[in-house]
């Protein structure tokens, strides 16, 4: 089984599965890979709010809380 990071938007509207492997990658860079800006989301990693400089590993579960909202 390949281990992956699961990223999803809190309302369930989108989900990504990405394998990172040995790379040391930060939340900000991970979001960049899927075309998102870190200043547009508050990031919860495995149930804890983290900053965009936090390191992510395979197996982590990331939930994104959109900062931008309409209306």
């Amino acid at each position, binding site marked *: 089984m390949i281990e992956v990071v699961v990223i999803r*938007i*809190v*309302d369930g509207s989108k989900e990504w599965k990405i394998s990172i492997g040995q790379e040391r990658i930060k939340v900000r860079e991970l979001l960049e890979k899927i075309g998102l*800006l*870190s*200043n*547009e989301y*508050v990031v919860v990693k495995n149930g*804890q*709010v*983290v*900053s*965009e*400089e*936090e*390191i992510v590993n395979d197996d982590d579960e990331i939930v994104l*809380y*959109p*900062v*931008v*909202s*309409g*209306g």
Partner: protein
Amino acid sequence: MVNCSLCEKPAVYINRISGKAYCKKHFLEYFDKKVRRTIRKYKMFGPKEHIVIAVSGGKDSLSLLHYMVKLSKRVPRWKISALLIDEGIKGYREYTKEDFIRVCKELGVEYKIASFKEYFGYTLDEIVMVGREKKLPYQPCSYCGVFRRYLLNKVAREMGATVLATAHNLDDIVQTFMMNIINNNWDKIIRLAPVTGPLDHPKFVKRVKPFYEILEKETTLYSLLNNLYPKFVECPYARFNIRWMIRRQINELEEKYPGTKYSLLRSLLRIISILEKHKDEVIQGEIKTCKICGEPSAHEVCRACLYRYELGIMNDEDRKKIEEVMK
């Protein structure tokens, strides 16, 4: 793991300009200090006030309500109430309205809901439909903004507000600034000041924006840490708005060059102070009283009455009056 610069606990936030990291406790302290500094700097409130908070039920306005109720515990002569304008947007407002009522009850704060339907006879959804049938050149957000601002002022005044606080944050402000530059709307730029209102017209309630210098990311985090983050629902009309694109552009710049938003804010404050010195040139004539409804207005007839007229959702008496004025 990234740790708090002050106490070594896990960080929940990094201020990308100062490079400082904050844990939950120290983030909330940082947030509180920043809002209090904003309130003081722009002299938003006096020692005795009836502060009406404009709340949509979204995360920013719930955060403002929560924050102000907590702050008011330290100021004995402040009274806080909440006001929600229900535009009548199906699939959206009914949800945020639920959150609004729940939070008001939790905080023990008095609230009022005023709807487009009861004041204008139509919901926003209905207004948008009529506008499309009549091929009027306006976007949903134009009706929404005009009618909402109109009701906020009128109803807050009727509630006895000495000041009306809105949850506009730094992101909202600089986006609106950019939109108004694009549209060459300098009179609207003057109104983006942190405090506006009471001197121009006796029926204008003073307006303040306590989150003026707070990033939207920070208000969002505040809402999340205080269990105020709503079920994420988005207004179905939001994407028709040019704001959507401008926001993305500014956020891309901010990502690459942290501090861009603050720079824009400094530019805004500078240009407001320059424009204030040339008010006659920017704003045509004094603020008037609308000949139809008696509310403050930039013209003989206010925007809300004009829209009602164009939409054909006005009673005959008012319609005749408008036609008289416009002759």
